[in-house]
């Protein structure tokens, strides 16, 4: 029995919602894996902040070209149709509303769609990168996250306690336990692991979820 989805499985689930022809930005880390799970017959074009549209997978070790990297500074490859551009054009694609989907990581998500994913507080070195731009640019901003923190506290909350990345920007959460939409300032449960009751899921969620008539089973292959 699956107790919770792995990051790879969450990435697989998120990939199922990406339409053919979509322009997509994937955040650094787990969201990068979404690119591997495009359903057959669909062609999404991936954008990276540092100025590439339509890049390919990682090259074999030793075949890297360090002028050809993604926003996570990892080597990528060319594909037929790749385009390069400078940073102002890259963020015109973001801020100008040309991206269909951005999929990001999260420390906390609030029921009104507020996202906190760039700072864990005043200690250490703050770093924001392109996250604050992405949350206001893409038509759809989705989050991939464990449903709870390492010590079991909810990450889906009434209000974020950490510094915000953006206000009211998240529209869908792919968690390790459920798929939850954010509509009208509320969490709306769409899918949950079949092994989990609604009450159990609610007890792990920091704000009351709206439970529609049908909640689908969240079924993901072993990956």
């Amino acid at each position, binding site marked *: 029995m699956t107790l919770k989805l792995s990051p790879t499985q969450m990435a697989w689930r998120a990939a199922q919602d990406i339409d053919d022809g979509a322009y997509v930005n994937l955040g650094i880390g787990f969201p990068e894996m979404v690119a591997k799970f495009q359903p057959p017959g669909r062609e999404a074009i991936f954008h*990276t*902040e*540092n*100025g*590439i549209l339509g890049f390919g997978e990682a090259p074999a070790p030793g075949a*890297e*070209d*360090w*002028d*050809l*990297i993604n926003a996570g*500074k990892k080597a990528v490859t*060319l594909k037929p149709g790749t385009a*390069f*551009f*400078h*940073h*102002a054009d*890259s*963020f015109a694609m*973001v*801020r100008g509303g040309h991206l269909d989907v951005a999929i990001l990581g999260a420390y906390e998500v609030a029921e009104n769609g507020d996202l906190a994913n760039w*700072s864990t507080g005043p200690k*250490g*070195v*703050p*770093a*924001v*990168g*392109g*996250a*604050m*731009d992405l949350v*206001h*640019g893409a038509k759809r901003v989705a989050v991939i996250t464990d449903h709870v923190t390492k010590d079991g506290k909810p990450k889906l909350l009434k209000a974020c306690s950490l*510094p*915000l*990345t*953006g*206000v009211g920007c998240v529209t869908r959460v792919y968690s390790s336990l459920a798929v939850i939409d954010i509509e009208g300032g509320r969490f709306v449960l769409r899918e949950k692991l079949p092994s989990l009751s609604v009450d159990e899921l609610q007890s792990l969620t920091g704000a009351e979820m709206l439970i529609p008539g049908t909640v689908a089973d969240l079924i993901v292959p072993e990956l």
Partner: protein
Amino acid sequence: MDKTLPDLATAVAGISDGMTVMIGGFGGSGAPIELIHALIDRFIATGHPRELTVVNNNAGNGHVGLAALIEAGMVKKLICSFPRSADPVVFTEAYLAGKIELELVPQGTLAERIRAGGAGIPAFYTPTSYGTDLAKGKPVEVFDGRPYVQERWLKADVALVKAHLGDRLGNLTYRMAGRNFNPLMCMAAAKTVVQVSRIVEPGEIDPEVVITPGIFVQGVVQVENPAQEEILNRAKAVYPEARA
């Protein structure tokens, strides 16, 4: 008109104490490592320039390039979006010790502030950072029912840029994602100095593929087979070598 320069030392000779210096690159890609190292050489020889304000997307990686500039003690303030890397020890230690000031700017806002500086646009509005700590103290205005944060242009005394091909008129091409901030910084600095892998004759670059037109460039120096930060770091390189 001939903007070519004989060597790297000449290219960085005009940078003096307290200047704002834009340095191109995103991580190591498009980073003008040789120009940065030439600036460090000058500092070691003369004690200048220092107290620099540096604009870059990152804060250096390992002990070469921008990290080496910070490690040499030449940087007073860094304006960047993401001061983390695989090996951010130099910036992190300087920052936590209070030896370097940080202005953190969202990446798209940083790019647009530089573009605006080059285009003569003193301020603009963006939805980015609205309602966050990075918008504190900035004017907010509502357009068509949505709030936007006012951001100001960013200009520099000097830009250090890496390109691929360049001619004596300053026309430039770049190599793949090494383009990133480089064309914007060319526009936003009073003086832009570019290292190119090869200087070619005017006309050898097809006008259709010029990315930076020469009007934005003041100096071009040839550095064949430029170093890549990632490869230097995998070899655990330190600049200058004597410090290793």
